[in-house]
């Protein structure tokens, strides 16, 4: 069964015309949304699209390279704090965004180097990344004292940093992004990263990554240095998670230790599993769907949101192991087959 699913979305085949049409039309519709929707809806949606970036970093790594990093939140949080601290110190928000990409990438390169070149097994990689993000959370939580200052910025421990500067327009730094503009920026980045990863998987680099997921030893026996491929993918995913973290801190506006926390780390796994980890579009849908479900459950006065999320996860793990979108795709393909036979 698992084999069938990978066949549905073979990474080596270029997308058909309808894929471009779908992506283009979706992007246009999303960009026009602020014209028609209430501001509070737009603000909620912005956070979903930011989470979708984080989900993409996870599905690229897990679904295509076979690396389950339980701690993508480590890079998410570092991106958030990196942006906040630098932007508060320098006032240069564009530069700080690039810093929020670079810092998690550097960090993931160091952590990844020891894990991947040390050839630890996949399960330990998952455990270590989870522990790393929890250590960062504890570490940041312990910085409430006024001796924990970077430049002129107090880290504030448990309370986080609530004064995250809004993003300014790169070519005119006197103007800040409006809520609508920031929404559109999130849409553009999400679409760019989605299309970019899809294209990357068409290249030799992407196809070798998939082969490592399938059978790492064979890839090595063919002559590819799998460690190089895995480490670079890990760093790339770290950068995407960092970008997502910076945007989330701006959206808050809050850089908070919870960005590193177990709850958020588990959310990422749930988005990707529910959406379908062997696709890139699935986790986007998963992030948006699950976050919307959480919000909706909250407004219905259901106190036990995590309990319901757990139920959803169990439902998917037991019944729709491939995730929502691939399962729907299979149902469609089956129906099509039946219709043709008639």
């Amino acid at each position, binding site marked *: 069964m698992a*084999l069938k699913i990978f066949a549905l979305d073979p990474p*080596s085949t270029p997308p058909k015309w309808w894929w471009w049409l779908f992506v283009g039309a979706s992007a246009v519709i999303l960009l026009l949304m602020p014209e028609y929707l209430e501001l509070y809806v737009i603000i909620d949606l912005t956070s979903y699209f930011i989470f979708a970036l984080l989900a993409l970093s996870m599905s690229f790594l897990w679904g295509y390279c076979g690396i389950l990093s339980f701690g993508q939140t480590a890079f998410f949080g570092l991106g958030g704090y990196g942006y906040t601290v630098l932007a508060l110190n320098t006032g240069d928000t564009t530069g700080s965004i690039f810093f929020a990409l670079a810092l998690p990438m550097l960090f993931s390169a160091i952590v990844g180097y020891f894990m991947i070149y040390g050839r630890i097994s996949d399960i330990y990689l998952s455990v270590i990344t989870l522990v790393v993000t929890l250590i960062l959370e504890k570490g940041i939580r312990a910085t409430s004292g006024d001796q924990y200052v970077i430049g002129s910025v107090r880290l504030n421990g448990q309370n986080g940093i609530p004064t995250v500067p809004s993003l300014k327009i790169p070519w005119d730094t006197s103007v800040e992004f409006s809520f609508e503009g920031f929404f559109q920026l999130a849409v553009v980045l999400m679409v760019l990263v989605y299309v970019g990863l899809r294209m990357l998987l068409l290249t030799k680099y992407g*196809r070798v990554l998939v082969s490592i997921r399938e*059978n790492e*030893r*064979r*890839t090595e*026996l063919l002559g590819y240095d799998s460690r190089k491929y895995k480490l670079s993918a890990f760093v790339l995913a770290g950068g995407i998670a960092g970008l997502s973290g910076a945007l989330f801190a701006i959206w808050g506006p809050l850089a908070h230790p919870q960005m590193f926390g177990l709850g958020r780390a588990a959310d990422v796994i749930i988005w990707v599993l529910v959406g379908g980890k062997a696709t890139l579009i699935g986790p986007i849908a998963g992030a948006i769907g699950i976050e919307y479900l959480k919000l909706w459950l909250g407004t219905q006065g259901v106190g036990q949101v995590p309990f319901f999320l757990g139920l959803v996860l169990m439902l998917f793990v037991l019944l729709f192991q491939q995730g929502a979108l691939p399962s729907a795709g299979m149902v469609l393909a089956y129906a099509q087959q039946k219709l043709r036979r008639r």
Partner: protein
Amino acid sequence: MAVDDIILETRSLVKRFGGVRAIAGVDFKLARGELRCLIGPNGAGKSTFFKMLTAQLRPTSGRIIFDGTDITRAEAHQISRLGIGIKNQVPDVYDGLSVHENLWLAARFRHDSRYARQAVDAALARLELGDISAKLVGELAHGQRQWVEFGMIMALEPEIVLLDEPTAGMSVEETNRTADLIHELNRTTTIIVVEHDMQFIRQIATQVTVFHQGQILAEDTMENIQRNQIVRDIYLGASGRA
């Protein structure tokens, strides 16, 4: 035999597992273009030897020299870059990818993308896998999966090919075809085959090396090996007479 004809050589190769000496000082030489079979009873050390030649195990001591390069401590991916193609006993393929993608990954390592596509088409034709090139390898029959792996190794255009029990689990017909493939490969490359199946060895072998208790017991043509009384006693036994 001239010295520069040697493509693969081991010098007093030793592998210990705890107190056990699985390989106890093997000096092995292989000439370019040769087709050599390694045989021996279970536990004789031929699989351990194979794994060391292919960098899947590190020797305890001794050296392995391939074409003038010391590969004793090489990594698996470096082995292939030097021109060594490896086929393990269990088909080592990408079950979740198509036949075409399997071959492409091998061909693309050696060639630019244009020539890689031609190499894949050539391999598909040669192995008669053209009709099923879009199928996932995991859905194929055992013999076909083995050939996909042969195809991948051919696409790498190696100088030497190491095969560990290439006919394990194959039908008679499939075994015959595999023997043909090996002969065809041997026209351009040097080959080492580790095998159990005596019938198959008779089909393909010119030179045979017999392992026993971690050492080389004998090295000769298959006819002479079959006549060798010591070899018969320790290894061939019942199956040798059959």
